[in-house]
């Protein structure tokens, strides 16, 4: 039974984890998240999660979103390990045990 104020948790491998998706923050963005490498946020889809991140850490908003509210072109966001732009974009649904990974777009060649 949860104590007062205790967040809902799930058990996985013996560890107690927040029952909300995890957002992994790349090094280049950590100065905007007070150094946090991971942020937990609530949302039904990718867009809501990223807005929740921006709400917790306002300095991330301008780096993630364009003035029109779209994901900035030079930012890649992955649901677990798949690019959301090739899934459903910001409308891509998320589950509580999903991980959102934000990465700068890096080329090869």
């Amino acid at each position, binding site marked *: 039974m949860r104590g007062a104020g205790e967040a809902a948790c799930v058990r996985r491998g013996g560890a107690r984890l927040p029952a909300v998706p995890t957002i992994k923050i790349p090094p280049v963005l950590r100065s905007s998240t007070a150094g946090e490498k991971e942020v937990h946020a609530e949302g039904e889809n990718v867009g809501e999660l990223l807005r929740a991140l921006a709400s917790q850490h306002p300095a991330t908003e301008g*780096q993630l979103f364009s003035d029109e509210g779209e994901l900035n072109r*030079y930012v890649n966001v992955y649901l677990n390990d798949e*690019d959301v*732009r*090739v899934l459903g974009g910001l409308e891509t649904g998320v589950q509580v045990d999903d991980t959102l990974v934000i990465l700068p777009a890096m*080329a090869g*060649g």
Partner: protein
Amino acid sequence: MGAPDLDTRPCGGKYGDIVRAIGNTPLVELKRISPKPGVRIWAKLESHNPTGSVKDRVARAMIEDAEAQGAIRPGQTILEPTSGNTGISLGMICSRKGYPLKVVMPDNVTAERTQLLQMYGAEVVYSPGEQGSNGAVAKALEMAEGDSTYYMPYQYGNQANPDAHYHGTAVEILEELDEVSAFVAGLGTGGTLMGNARRLKEEDPDTLIVAAEPLQGELVQGLRSLEDGFIPPIIDLAMLDRKIFVSNRDSVVWTKKLLAEEGLFVGVSSGAIASIAVRVAESLDEGNVVFVVCDDGWKYLSSGVYTKPIEELEETIETASFW
């Protein structure tokens, strides 16, 4: 008495020079890593190109296209950003054609890449390794802006890059297979995926096009801001059905797996691509899954990937640039 019959077919062909010998690479079935009997996995061995990588096709196409358009003067210096393979391919072709070559490359690539470039007479300018190819592109563009005597093919924005695959790689695959359920390649410049996607989907719109891309270690994500992110202009995400990242660690694991289980000696990016090819194969009931082996493993030998256990490769995994 006549000559004995040829045992091995198809024959490798006869070519006027080494540049003409680019392409026509083998397609090899990998039965041992296929997860299901009805799904056949095929490796397109672009490592069999003359300088050892898929980029030979791209380098030839870009230079020949520029010559056809009159964009290059005889003896003009070619300048190009590269993580290695394109530079090496250009090195061979430019040395034959008399164009001096200057390449901009991240300084954290393996020593073999530098040696191969020097071997072909290229001048190497290094960019900060922690910025990856993004840094090389930025530096090369800055150099080109400052000196109009250079000609930059710019593989990231040159249509000759995907066209080399549209007219070459994809046609070869279709020559050998009656159907292609899925095509998997690495996402670097986007040329391999875009060119093959366009041609394969013309043949069968249901062919899945899947991109495997590198998840670089944090130490090589040294961009100053997200705005330093770079997406090559030739990439059209609408051509992709899936785009999946693979960590350096998983790339190394699968590179070693290909060697151990199939006897395939491939570069680390090809290990990553193979991992995604198998994942795609698991989602199918039947069909052919083709993936591109971009290069072989010779230029990564110094990394220890092929001989050391994974536990001893953690630092390499965090800092090396394999793509």
